């Protein structure tokens, strides 16, 4: 799943339209939208770090996110001299309040240039050679507890700079700027999806695990052993029917013993 967070309704609207995201009416603390296939969600967080942190946590609780999910903070930001409307992926986030720094891991071919971002507590027109916003550090700080650094990113579109400061920004302009970069957002998602799929594939439980856990009693350490043995089984005895072998086992312990003994007595070749 892909979770997008925008501070402002005008940042969110072009994405809601583009990805066709209906409003999920059952959640009222923050506005959450989600595609019918549940692949993409978008949450409007409101301005500032507190709102962003609360919204990410809320969304996580409401939608049951997974370790393989993609997390994106998309919105506008200021910069001293990058032209308005240009887009940047963030490669370093510094919280101006305490100088804590995070490094989103761009381990794919980025669809646009990347740069440093500073998250401020209050709006400022004291532009420097960094992006400025008011949410990214909070977004990253919470999202990194829920996902993997390679799948959590901030994408910012330049809305103001030293030549045209925040006074010139309005909702209409923001909508147009975001709409103009939808292709880059699509590309970013396309590059992140295979990484997400890879994490999903390595975190998924082996075949029959869930069924056995529900049917028989396993302690916590026995469940771990079961998961490991089922995996070893699929690698060492891929053509044998494991369920048939353990059909007569009446307890979790008996299943583990049967699996272990059969695996240990099988031949092992590391290659074909």
């Amino acid at each position: 799943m892909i979770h997008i967070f925008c501070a402002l309704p005008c940042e969110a609207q072009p994405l809601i339209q583009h990805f066709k995201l209906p409003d999920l009416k059952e959640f009222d603390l923050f506005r959450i939208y989600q595609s019918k296939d549940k692949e993409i969600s978008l949450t409007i967080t409101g301005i500032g770090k507190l709102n962003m942190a609360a919204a990410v946590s809320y969304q996580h609780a409401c939608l049951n996110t997974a370790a393989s999910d993609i997390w994106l903070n998309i919105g506008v930001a200021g910069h001293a001299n990058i032209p308005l409307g240009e887009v940047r992926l963030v490669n370093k986030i510094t919280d101006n309040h305490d100088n804590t720094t995070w490094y989103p891991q761009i381990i794919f071919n980025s669809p646009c240039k990347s740069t440093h971002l500073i998250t401020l507590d209050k709006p400022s027109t004291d532009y420097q050679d960094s992006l400025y916003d008011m949410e990214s550090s909070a977004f990253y700080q919470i999202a990194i507890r829920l996902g993997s650094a390679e799948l959590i990113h901030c994408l910012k579109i330049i809305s103001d700079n030293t030549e045209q400061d925040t006074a010139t920004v309005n909702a209409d302009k923001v909508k147009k700027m975001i709409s103009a970069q939808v292709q880059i957002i699509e590309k970013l998602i396309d590059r992140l999806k295979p990484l997400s799929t890879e994490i999903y594939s390595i975190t998924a439980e082996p075949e029959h695990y869930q069924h056995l856990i529900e049917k028989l009693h396993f302690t916590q350490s026995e469940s771990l052993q079961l998961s490991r043995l089922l995996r070893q089984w699929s690698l060492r005895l891929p053509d044998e029917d494991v369920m048939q072998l353990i059909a007569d086992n009446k307890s979790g312990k008996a299943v583990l013993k049967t699996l272990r003994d059969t695996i240990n007595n099988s031949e092992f070749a590391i290659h074909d």
Partner: protein
Amino acid sequence: MISTIYIEEEIANHPRTLAILKRFPDATKISCQRYGEVFNSKSQNFRLQKKQAALILARKHKGLVLPSPKEYAIGAELNYYFSHMLNCLYDCRYCFLQGKFQSAHYVLFVNYEDFIEEMQLLLNQHDEEAVHFFSGYDCDSLALDPVTDFTSEFLPFLESNPRALLELRTKSTQIRSLLKREPIKNCVIAFSFTPDKIARTLEHKVPDINKRLQALLDLQEAGWQIGLRFDPLIYTKDYAKEYSELFNEIFSKINPELTHSISLGGFRLPKDYFRKLEKLYPDEKLFASPQAEEKNNIGYPAEIRHEMLDFCENIITQHIPAEKFFPCHETI
């Protein structure tokens, strides 16, 4: 090859940093205070990062040269290792670095001068004794040599300190800088091998056996001392046939005179590293190998371990004198 470079502020103007940055004009450069902010941060995925690892240029402050475990000695009483680099270009599935580090990025400590100073201090402390230094614990010693200039910086130190011996442990064919200079007696280039089919299965992005063997022969031809490392020994049902073929291939070609040492040891990992790797690569057969746990390590059961070590030892000692052979007969 490298598209992102993190640079510690402290060494941003170090001549080695500047030289390396010059080689990668198009890379995105990101400054950081300490490399650990990037390298050690949690919630990173080693497997994903391996797809496009970044380079981190940093300064090593302490623990530059450390005592190395006795089991890995190759003939001296005093053994130390140092890591000018963390992580490796290659991607061997059995590599313990995947378990040791959070991140797959390559860290290069550019302050070689401090490593060399510490090595000199150690030599001074142990007057008249031979001291062995090992460089390939946390990286492949040569794989990134064209970028790091590691050998051209460290070998002059060896040349002027004949009591020291340096082992460069590698699976690489990056030997150009070595061939360009006169060989040094107290430097051993130690090549690691597993049989061809096993290497193809487990050693990703690594030069194949023939290329490695050719690099080894080129070095011997030029007069360099080489080492052979059959560590880890990998178990498979036909291991005897596969290892026999590998040994035949190697021993029929190498010059025993210029073979400094041979060592071997079974595949084993600290338990927590093994468990981490098993999670990172759940579809990897290596982690479904016959296994036993001893003293917080996971490796092959004693029976398999001893059988393999004895088998290999038998063949190896037919080719080289016992004093050049260093089996690692520890428990797992």
